[in-house]
């Protein structure tokens, strides 16, 4: 095989016909799974910290179960189970969105748990002392601070999530990586397209993590 890499096939029409579609799905998957995961994860964290056995045990089981199975295996499980449960296939893309939301909730819940625990206990006591209910305490005092304290960690986890979306490869969903792969087969240039994929993922993730680093410094100064 010719050793020199040949990128002559790259053009705007190449990008628009193979890559954009995949990139849009990867970003969509990341955003939906991040938002859904943070909401479910926060609920799980509240359950685990509630001190009530009937809430703590299921939440702990959910988080520990999902955290000990490889993500690719979880993706396979959902792709197999969803059609068995609802009687029809949802397609790889929708199946991936459900899987990632459920899976990432376990990871976000650990972040939120640390965030909630970072708020001094005295503030909750103060809330109760002025007559607030549990719900008001959480909503008005604890959660806003927990989110703020954990914002850099939540964003870092979201960058990891974006990288992990490439694992939808296992069920063949059309994401950013798939876009590069399909085009590599099309032009018979697999090495070149995988290299491009690495560059694109690197540029996106590196610049986002630089932004998070800045944010972290900014928050650190204000506090």
């Amino acid at each position: 095989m010719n050793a020199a890499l040949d990128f002559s096939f790259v053009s705007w029409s190449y990008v628009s016909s193979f890559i954009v579609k995949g990139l849009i799905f990867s970003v969509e998957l990341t955003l939906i799974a991040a938002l859904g995961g943070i909401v479910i994860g926060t609920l799980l964290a509240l359950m685990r910290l509630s001190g009530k056995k009937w809430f703590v045990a299921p939440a702990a089981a959910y988080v520990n179960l999902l955290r000990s199975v490889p993500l690719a295996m979880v993706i396979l499980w959902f792709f197999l189970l969803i059609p068995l449960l609802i009687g029809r296939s949802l397609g790889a893309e929708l199946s991936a969105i459900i899987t990632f939301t459920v899976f990432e909730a376990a990871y976000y819940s650990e972040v939120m748990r640390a965030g909630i625990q970072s708020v001094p206990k005295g503030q909750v006591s103060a809330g109760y002392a002025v007559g607030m209910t549990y719900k008001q305490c959480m909503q008005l005092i604890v959660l806003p601070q927990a989110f703020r304290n954990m914002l850099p960690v939540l964003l870092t986890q979201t960058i990891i999530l974006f990288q992990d979306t490439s694992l939808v490869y296992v069920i063949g969903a059309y994401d950013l990586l798939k876009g590069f792969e399909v085009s590599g087969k099309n032009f018979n240039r697999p090495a070149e397209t995988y290299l491009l994929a690495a560059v694109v993922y690197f540029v996106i993730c590196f610049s986002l993590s630089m932004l998070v680093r800045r944010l972290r410094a900014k928050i650190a100064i204000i506090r």
Partner: protein
Amino acid sequence: MGKLDWNIFFQDTGGGQTYLQWLMHAWGWTLAVALLALVIALAVGSLIGIFRTVPNKALSFFGEAWTELFRNIPLIVQLFIWYFVLPRIFPPLTQVPGFLLAVFGLGFFTSARIAEQVKAGIQALPKGQRYAGLAMGLTLPQTYRYVIMPMAFRIVIPPLTSESMNIIKNSSVAFAVQVSELLFFAQQAAEETSQGVVIYLVVTVLYFISAFVINRIAMFIEHKLVVPGTVGAGK
């Protein structure tokens, strides 16, 4: 949902072995990939972590660049680079089995995370220890060897425990470069037998067991090496 048929494990795959035998081989590959990659990751990660704390500008830049490079590209893409791109650029690599390429890919990927922990461990030590070593006339490498690293390694062991569990989970990505490990088995066998639920259950349990055993071993080491008077001691 169809009936769960556990007997499929005693059926022949058509290749002269039963699915059970194939499963056991696949488990072996998973453990082999994970453990070999862990060795590489610990060696490379420690070195890079040390680089990131030395006064030499070039070395610490190299360490930073290494960490960012291997941390910001998805593992599956890194494996494709090892498998498809590097052999194109360095033709001798075509002679190397895909299994080893996957080991290096996973090892280097994990080395970036380990470097981060090692750096944090070194920085957690009081600066005075470094100065004391240098003041006594030790060279910088000697200071690292006899003063800093013996402490730093013992501090970073707890995070390394969780990293060793991650490496078992991450080894599943090697399916993408045709390494016949557990996830690859799960995918192939489920397709051949249409007994996906049974196959996935067994494979998931094997991942559990592997991660659990690694965790126990790591916790045992952790317990033996804990520095008295630090967090985690006294339990």
